[in-house]
């Protein structure tokens, strides 16, 4: 979807060469070698998390998993551009982002194992839990950013969403409100070229980043497989937000290398050529080449990273397998903050009902059937 009329910003080419970008260069000029290595390490670990979770799904330990394979640079580059008090509103696919925000592996997996409808405490990570209703969270991010203005804070909110999401009315309304109130929100679109089976060309014949200027929102298209460029672009947007510049829109042009979720079979709707093409643009390979060629990455550092990835993967597997099932009566919790006599009555009756089975049937603890 890179479009002749919109430049695709890039800092590291697919073959690992650092190139100049007038707009973005200044936003990465401060990065030291360790920071660069960390970006690579993040991507490595996140890819490992993704692979481990996919395997756990195959083994029946998770009900579902939405792989982020191929989108590591988009996720890491963007989240690493933010401060802790910036607030993130993700979709279901930002599990790499969650890792970088410090989410425990258990809290990441809960939703996909089916023990919880969310996971972490949003106020601990300053990150909302996964949003499944497509586009919905862009309004939440906008409202949060409106609140930042009211509170006189200099932080921002960032909404992740996909190429498919750009067709939803909510995303449009979010841009309308953000522009109208000059809210410090970053609209971060990961154009991974597919919405389940639908190619991005069905949502739009022109670049998605071209939408934002129509609302008066500056936007740019960035190589979403170039972690440095994504970091820089997000810093550009974050800087605008923090300095009263209002909303920005970033289209990270990337590719979903895997299935939509583990329930999906992409061979039904896309060919191998496309996959090969994008394989050549892999975000990890290019960053590794760039670092190695620049002498910033040696075997020692690499094996330290691999060890860390192993540890995270082990944490993940352990968290998953040791997950206790929720208590039966937990279904009645947190529906309301205050008392609710009708629901309390339903709960009491269900408790009494469950007690009928006590000792008499396997249903006793786990509920009927």
């Amino acid at each position, binding site marked *: 979807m890179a479009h002749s009329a919109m430049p695709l910003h890039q800092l590291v080419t697919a073959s690992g060469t650092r190139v100049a970008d007038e707009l973005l260069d200044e936003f990465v000029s401060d990065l030291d070698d360790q920071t660069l290595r960390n970006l690579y390490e993040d991507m490595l670990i996140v890819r490992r998390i993704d692979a481990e979770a996919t395997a756990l799904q195959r083994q029946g330990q998770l009900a579902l998993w939405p792989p982020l394979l191929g989108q590591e640079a988009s996720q890491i580059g963007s989240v690493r551009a933010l401060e802790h008090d910036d*607030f993130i*509103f993700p979709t279901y696919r930002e599990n790499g982002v969650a890792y970088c925000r410090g989410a425990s592996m258990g809290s990441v997996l809960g939703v996909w194992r089916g023990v*919880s*409808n*969310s996971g972490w*405490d*949003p*106020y601990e990570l300053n990150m*909302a*839990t996964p949003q499944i*209703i497509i586009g*919905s969270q862009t*309004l*939440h*991010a*906008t*409202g*949060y*950013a*409106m*609140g*930042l*203005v*009211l*509170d006189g804070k200099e932080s921002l*909110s960032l909404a992740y969403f996909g190429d498919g999401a750009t067709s939803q*009315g*909510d995303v449009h*309304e*979010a841009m*309308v*409100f953000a522009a*109208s*109130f000059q809210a410090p929100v970053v609209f971060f679109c990961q154009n991974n070229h597919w919405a389940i089976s639908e190619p991005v060309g069905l949502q739009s014949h022109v670049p998605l980043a071209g939408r934002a200027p129509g609302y008066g929102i500056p936007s740019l298209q960035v190589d979403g497989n170039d972690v440095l460029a994504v970091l820089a672009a997000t810093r550009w947007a974050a800087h605008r937000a923090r300095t009263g510049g209002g909303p920005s829109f970033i289209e990270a042009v990337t590719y979903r290398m895997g299935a939509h979720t583990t329930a999906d079979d992409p061979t039904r709707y896309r060919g191998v050529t496309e996959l090969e093409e994008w394989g050549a643009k892999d975000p990890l390979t290019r960053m590794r080449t760039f670092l190695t060629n620049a002498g910033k990455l040696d075997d020692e550092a690499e094996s330290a990273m691999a060890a860390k990835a192993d540890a995270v993967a082990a944490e993940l597997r352990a968290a998953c397998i040791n997950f206790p099932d929720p208590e039966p009566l937990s279904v009645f*919790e*947190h*529906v*309301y*903050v*205050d*008392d*609710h*006599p*009708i*629901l309390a009555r339903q709960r009491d009756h269900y408790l009494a009902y469950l007690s009928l089975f006590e000792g008499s049937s396997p249903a006793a603890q786990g509920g009927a059937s």
Partner: protein
Amino acid sequence: MKLSLTQAINAGLRRALEDDPKVVLLGEDIGTLGGVFRVTDGLMKDFGSHRVIDTPLAESAIIGTAVGLAYRGFRPVCEIQFDGFIYPGFDQIVSQVAKLHARTRGAVRMPLTIRVPFGGGIGSPEHHSESPEAYFVHTSGLRVISPSNPQDAYTMLRQAIASDDPVLYFEPKRRYHAKDEVMLDAPLSTAPLMGAARVVAAGTDVTLVSYGPLVRTALDAASAAAAEGISIEVIDLRSLSPIDYLPVMESVRRTGRLVISHEAGQTLGLGAEIAATITERCFNYLEVAPVRVTGFDIPYPPSKVEKHHLPDLDRILDGVDRALGRPNSHSGMED
């Protein structure tokens, strides 16, 4: 002080804005204009455009940005201009507002209040006379209330805004200009609970349950029936979700007869739930089946014929007759 229902709501909003800096108002035309019904009159002038926010014309965004504001600790009060315009915001209400607290296992609260002028009888064009309350009563995670008089309008609105649960606040717009005494300074702590129903006329022969716009009509029906020697107990539900069944049960166990009236269509209108629940909980006390006197199952008709759709005094009395087994009743038959 004598206030109209709109003035009482205005006073309630003003008080909430004064008491809590985290209260913000969002809606179409609520600022400079003061709302199409003047409910928010003067509030932008007094509290500023950062707290009384004229929004672009988009209901999903009004609710959706309020969700974001709630994430940040605000207590947004959204105005939906008319009942029929709430549906573009339905997804945000049902999938986000109602569920976020449970979804996050209590971590995120959604103390939104969504004000909705509702109901018919004011001669409006299509989409301006809807009674959509049942959709929200069926939605777990929401509270739904509807005041019938200025004092309740004032108190219940303050309670709604103070509540940490999301509240749909349905304003009976045909009662907007009804004036009554309102005590503005009575402490919330001694006020009747937001969720409590109230017996507004004591009676012994029939229990008549209603809410919002029809409470006045129900009281008029009770007066008319009294002249014929029939004693109707009128209960104003006030809270539609959850419904406070205790006074209804207590009453029905005395009268053995229940009539429920609302403007919304009959099928799965609130009457269905009340009839089903009271039948479950008072079966042995009922002399006859609960009687529903409601709008028909039709799209809201043109205003020149809305009187045929809306329950009025005569139709409610016909329902009472039916509950009493009197011969000339026709509002429902066992065939």
